[in-house]
């Protein structure tokens, strides 16, 4: 970790796929306990950036340092201390919730797994699904089980790719509250992507707007709104998505 308190440092990160630049010279950092929104229209490079930060995809150039450790040379040590959840991936549907969490608990070397699993299921208000086969859960329950998996190893950094995408407003609010609570209590850094701009305003301490792979705006939601002279992040999003620029 650096003296600035940054747990995640991204420097001049670039990824090109067969001549197409998906991520273009992106630099940013995230401090401990910060919720950082990574925003942008479809194809802006958000998902590719997260893949690069998790070491799933190798960068064309640039550096990623997590806890002061360089990716990819310290990938396993880093992965031990981070986790990821996405609306677009799932846990095996033919295993029960408990079995799935047990498997991942073992993969992350979690001690007192039964206790931890019970606590997480309680935290996300789904204690009654522990023995249910994952394939029989509602999409909202699946999302919360995925979040339980993401919190299994007590991560210091959590990458959340549209975590509330399939949730109804009530459950989405509960998930947001749980995330904010964990952030406060555990000092977890969260990198958060969402297309729900109202949610981003509620959850994120700071946001980064990407467009065509480049960072086009960065700051707190309030700073961005002031610079864009806009009344909501949704308006800013639409401006950026349509090729407009903000100061």
């Amino acid at each position, binding site marked *: 970790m650096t003296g600035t308190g940054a747990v995640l440092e991204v420097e001049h990160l670039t990824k090109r796929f067969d001549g197409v630049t998906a991520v273009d010279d992106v630099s940013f950092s995230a401090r401990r306990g910060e919720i950082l929104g990574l925003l942008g229209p479809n194809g802006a490079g958000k*998902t590719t950036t997260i893949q690069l930060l998790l070491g799933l995809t190798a960068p064309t150039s640039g550096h990623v340092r997590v806890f002061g450790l360089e990716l990819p040379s310290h990938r396993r040590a880093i*992965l031990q201390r981070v986790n*990821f959840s996405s609306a677009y*991936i*799932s*846990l095996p549907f033919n295993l029960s919730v408990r079995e799935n969490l047990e498997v*991942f608990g073992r993969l992350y*070397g979690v001690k007192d797994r039964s206790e931890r699993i019970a606590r997480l299921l309680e935290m996300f208000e789904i204690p009654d699904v522990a023995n249910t086969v994952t394939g029989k859960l509602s999409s909202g329950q699946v999302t919360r089980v995925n979040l339980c998996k993401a919190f299994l190893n007590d991560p210091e950094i959590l990458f959340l790719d549209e975590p509330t995408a399939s949730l109804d407003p009530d459950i989405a609010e509960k998930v947001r509250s749980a995330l904010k609570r964990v952030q406060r209590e555990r000092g977890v850094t969260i990198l958060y992507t969402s297309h729900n701009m109202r949610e981003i305003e509620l959850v994120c301490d700071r946001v980064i707007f990407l467009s065509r792979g480049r960072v086009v705006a960065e700051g707190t939601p309030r700073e961005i709104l002031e610079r864009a002279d806009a009344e909501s992040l949704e308006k800013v999003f639409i401006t950026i998505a349509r090729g407009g620029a903000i100061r």
Partner: protein
Amino acid sequence: MWGRVGALLLRYLYLYRRSLARSMEIFFWPVMDLLVWGFVTVYFQKLAAPRAVVFLLGAVIFWDVFYRSQQAITLSLSEEIWVRNLLNVFIAPVRTFEIVLATCLLGLIRATISASVLGLLAFGLYAFDVTTLGAALLPYLASILLFGWAVGMCTMALILRFGHAAEALIWGTPFLLQPISAAFYPVAVLPSFLRSIALLLPTTHVFEGMRATLATGRPALAPLLPAFALNAVYLALAGAFFGWMMSRVREKGYLARLAME
């Protein structure tokens, strides 16, 4: 109605036109069957011994060990793709080697169970008692298991690289090797140019050794050395190929794309 049927037909034809693996399915199985059973017929014509059934039953069990061990690797990782769990596995702090090893061990378990069941059935139905030669055949079973792992690693690397289009290889690759593995007939039955290729496969030496052991009742040790030497080479090559493909997959972003499709 016919318009919809025609549209569906066109959709499948497009698929076959765009996928070599799918196109291969049309002629692959019949050609392989023809090759295998054609050579078996040639063998039977030359054979005037009642041992044929014993050899065939032994071959079926050994072939199944190979098939199950390679499938344990390919099906296990493919299953992660099918249930969209691949990224969860690859972002966990596990080495790729550990993932492959786990699937290899699964292959060992699957092959052991499968061989045991087949052995019991063969004993019950045909009085084929594999246990009378048990210890002598174990090195051959181990050798064929190792080759199954090597083939499984290569197949899985191709699936990770080429995605769902390559999934037909899970079932197809073993049968691509079957005609030249001399599984159901001696390698001598093959034409000379195929014989040279066959001798480069550990499976050929395993099946030759198995037949020699079953024929004499004594362990035939000579084919074991080339079988294990070739396995060492193929496992090293398969490991290197898997590693190289994984680096290509990471470079091209295929892992995430495959996992989130």
